[in-house]
């Protein structure tokens, strides 16, 4: 009786498979950057000849930041949270107070920094202004702030809402040139 042993296909040693997998894993862990590019987007005004636009003084909210990062809003020393409430009051005044803006569409925020102002402070102020406007717009649309921030530009229905809010309360911040250090 011939016992013919069936030849098995040669087995590949799988012991090293785990090592390979670990190596790949570590490689991708190192190579992948999780941080996505995020930031505060602003549109710069186009380069143009200086045009004198006449704006009523009451419609301009002045913010000055000096080189010590002290902030002056409407000739009053303020900190960031105070600035936000002041800006909101100013923009949503609708002509009630003689010294505040006539309507949200006419309100302009003028931000003037010094050459020595720190960038952190500047971003802080810009961020605070953006948040103030986001809050006002969400109020205008009668929705919570979080819902407003989650509105999607790609969705036509939501875009319409965004456009409406943007039209009613336009973000008008004039970013004046920093003054020279004196």
């Amino acid at each position, binding site marked *: 009786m011939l016992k013919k042993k069936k030849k098995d296909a040669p087995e590949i040693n799988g012991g090293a498979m785990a090592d*390979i997998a670990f*190596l790949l894993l570590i490689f991708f862990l190192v190579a992948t950057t999780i941080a996505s590019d995020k*930031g*505060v*987007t602003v549109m710069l005004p*186009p380069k143009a000849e200086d045009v004198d636009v006449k704006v009523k003084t009451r419609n301009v909210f002045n913010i000055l930041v000096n080189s010590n990062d002290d902030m002056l809003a409407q000739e009053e020393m303020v900190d960031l949270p105070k600035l936000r409430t002041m800006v909101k009051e100013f923009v949503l005044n609708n002509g009630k107070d003689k010294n505040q803006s006539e309507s949200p569409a006419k309100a302009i925020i003028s931000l003037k920094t010094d050459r020595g102002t720190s960038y*952190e402070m500047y971003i802080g102020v810009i961020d605070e202004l953006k948040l103030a406007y986001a809050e006002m717009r969400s109020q205008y649309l009668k929705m919570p702030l979080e819902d407003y921030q989650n509105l999607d530009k790609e969705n036509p229905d939501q875009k319409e809402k965004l456009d409406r809010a943007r039209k009613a309360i336009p973000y008008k911040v004039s970013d004046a040139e920093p003054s020279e250090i004196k």
Partner: protein
Amino acid sequence: MATFKKKTKTKQDIPTSALPDIIFMLLFFFMIATTFRESELLVKNSLPQASELTKLEKKSLVSYIYIGEPSDTRKFGTEARIQVNDVLIDPEQIVQHVIQEKDKLGEDGDKITMSLKIDREAKMGIISDVRQKLREANALKVNYAANKKLRNF
């Protein structure tokens, strides 16, 4: 009764002792071939924090400018400098840089977004110089890179 027990003398398993070497070779290849960052940072770059952030959408339309104190202060001094690609430049060269970047994008050149990665300790002086140059170069969409700040109301 004759039984033929055929004993195969050939070794069946493939030698795997060279496998780690192959894997290491692959590892080294990828280590050399991968670029983790577009450019090596020559300036300090710790971003400020902000809460109202927008995400940069089309990465191909984004061009980066880094501003901060040079890491190599002995060579470049402590004054904040501007870095594009791999070199430190003066504010005057920004217009030229933007034009080059726009050229690279072809007809989408006007949709360029400048991402400014500025160190939180930088001063507004140099930033406003850069901003003026960007206005001159008609690259008006600017994104100040920042990290997420959580606010509790």
